[in-house]
């Protein structure tokens, strides 16, 4: 279970005229995600959903609030004094991916993460990419290849083991990212717009692949997306974010049984409701600027 309590993230920036300024990327977001669910964080770009996802994964410390994964805290807010900072570092050396070991790889929570671009390392072949994450997870050298092969076969990449990501299509690359994440057998996968960069047909196939693997493994998936159809088709729950500052606007549970049809009237009705939320956003903003 992932539990986020009152997460706030504030970035301080310096304006061009050298005045201090700040952006509240996420404001007081609380969210509980049950095990084995697919939850989508939906919203326009710049509404803090990616930042929130990175906080869930422990890649950023929140300014306020805390995230618990199965009761263990991920990263608490950074302290303000130097003395407290030392203590903080000591405490989270073992917990946060930000404070991983110097020499020894230390897998922490069973989390995997997939990004839209830069998802796989272009300097490694398909097989090397998967084996590398297995290495990081401390799996012995001899077992890496068979495990990697299992997942690559599952996802249909067994034919292009020695290709480099630049030789693959965009869809194949995301598939590789998926195989790489699944190979470490995580309980939670965090996805940051994983299918945004591929064409619509490939995207639908990738979504089906993802669902198939989800049935098989029963992992928890947190998916950041700005594609309403994708969110509707995949998720058990949609959390709609609104920008300035990033906050939860609405939550929709989807009880529609799987496999779903993309043209299911129930989903379309829900889509109508969600898009109307965004419309309101746009009107609201233009009024404000006038």
């Amino acid at each position, binding site marked *: 279970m992932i539990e986020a309590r009152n997460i706030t993230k504030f970035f301080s920036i310096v304006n061009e005229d050298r005045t201090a300024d700040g952006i509240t990327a996420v404001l007081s977001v609380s969210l509980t995600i049950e095990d084995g669910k697919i939850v989508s964080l939906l919203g326009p770009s710049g509404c803090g959903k990616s930042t929130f996802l*990175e906080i869930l*994964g*422990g*890649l950023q410390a929140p300014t306020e609030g805390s995230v618990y994964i199965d009761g263990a805290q991920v990263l608490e807010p950074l302290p303000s004094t130097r003395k407290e900072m030392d203590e903080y570092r000591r405490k989270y050396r073992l917990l946060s*991916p*930000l404070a*991983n*070991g*110097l*020499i*020894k*790889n*230390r*897998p*922490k929570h069973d*989390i*995997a*993460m*997939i*990004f839209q*671009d*830069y*998802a796989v*390392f*272009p*300097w*490694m*072949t398909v097989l090397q990419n998967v084996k*590398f*994450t297995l*290495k*990081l*997870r*401390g799996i012995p050298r001899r077992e890496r290849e068979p495990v990697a092969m299992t997942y690559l076969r599952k996802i249909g990449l067994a034919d292009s083991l020695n290709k*480099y*990501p*630049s*030789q693959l299509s965009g869809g194949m690359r995301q598939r590789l990212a998926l195989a790489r994440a699944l190979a*470490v057998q995580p309980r939670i996968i*965090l996805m940051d717009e994983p299918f945004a960069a591929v064409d619509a047909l490939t995207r639908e196939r990738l979504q089906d692949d993802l669902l198939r693997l989800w049935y098989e493994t029963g992992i928890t998936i947190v998916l950041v997306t700005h594609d309403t159809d994708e969110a509707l088709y995949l998720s058990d729950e949609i959390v709609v974010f609104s920008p300035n500052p990033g906050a939860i606007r609405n939550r929709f549970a989807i009880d529609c049984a799987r496999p779903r049809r993309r043209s299911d009237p129930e989903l379309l009705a829900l889509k109508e409701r969600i898009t109307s939320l965004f419309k309101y956003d746009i009107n609201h903003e233009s009024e404000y600027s006038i």
Partner: protein
Amino acid sequence: MNKYETKGARSAFRLALRELGYFFKGAAMNIFSLEFLMVLIPLLGLWELLPRMGVVPRTLVPPPSDVAVAAWDMFTKHNFLKDIGDSMLKFFMGLGIAVITAIPIGVLMGWNIAMRKRALPLFQLLAPIPPPAWVPITIIFFGIGLPMQTFLIFIGAFYPILFNTYQAVKDTEPRYLASARVFGASELALILHVYFWHALGAIIMSVKTGVAMGLVMLVIAEMYGGRTGIGYVLVEAKDYFQISKMVVCMVTLGVIGWFLIEALKFIELKLAVWKVGR
């Protein structure tokens, strides 16, 4: 067992030979392409004809035939090959030391902000000193000979490699790092498997700059101190007003530089094979 080993060694040797063949073929193709020969041959002809027809004084501009004769003389009678060998020894020692020191320091400075803050200002202060300015103090320190020349070549090649490596490592895409960190990557694993490879293209590029600077410093070092080497022969030829001999030295340096750059391009192709598909 033994049989397999020799077989393995033989096939590795054969592979190396084949790669070497590809390399020379690729390098030669650049020079001896029909398109370039169409430019090169008329140029050489012009160079041959102008001094012979007296358009330019032949004593100052020796035609290629004179240069070729001088080259034959130098290689057969004056053992110019040994000079080339001596120069290359110094050059590779200097460049090698620069590569094995600058790359690790650059990677460390790019990786860690604490190290950067402590080390970078020092290099930023020292780097603007033009490498030839190091000549006098180096001569006093090391005397005249191999250590001094090696050090000067090292100084020439060190800074371009260091700064480019540092910059490329520093600019590593944070998302690559994040995606490795989530899986529990230690800093060492990040350096070995992410930072270094991300920067590899820029590092090889910087070694090319290092080769160019190293050649500059090679000539300067040999002009100022030494009894052998291409630079020494060059200065000697100046003293005796042997212009064709000077041209031979210059062409030799040009060919060496060209060859090294081609070799680095080949290494880049082999190491950064993943970039080719782009």
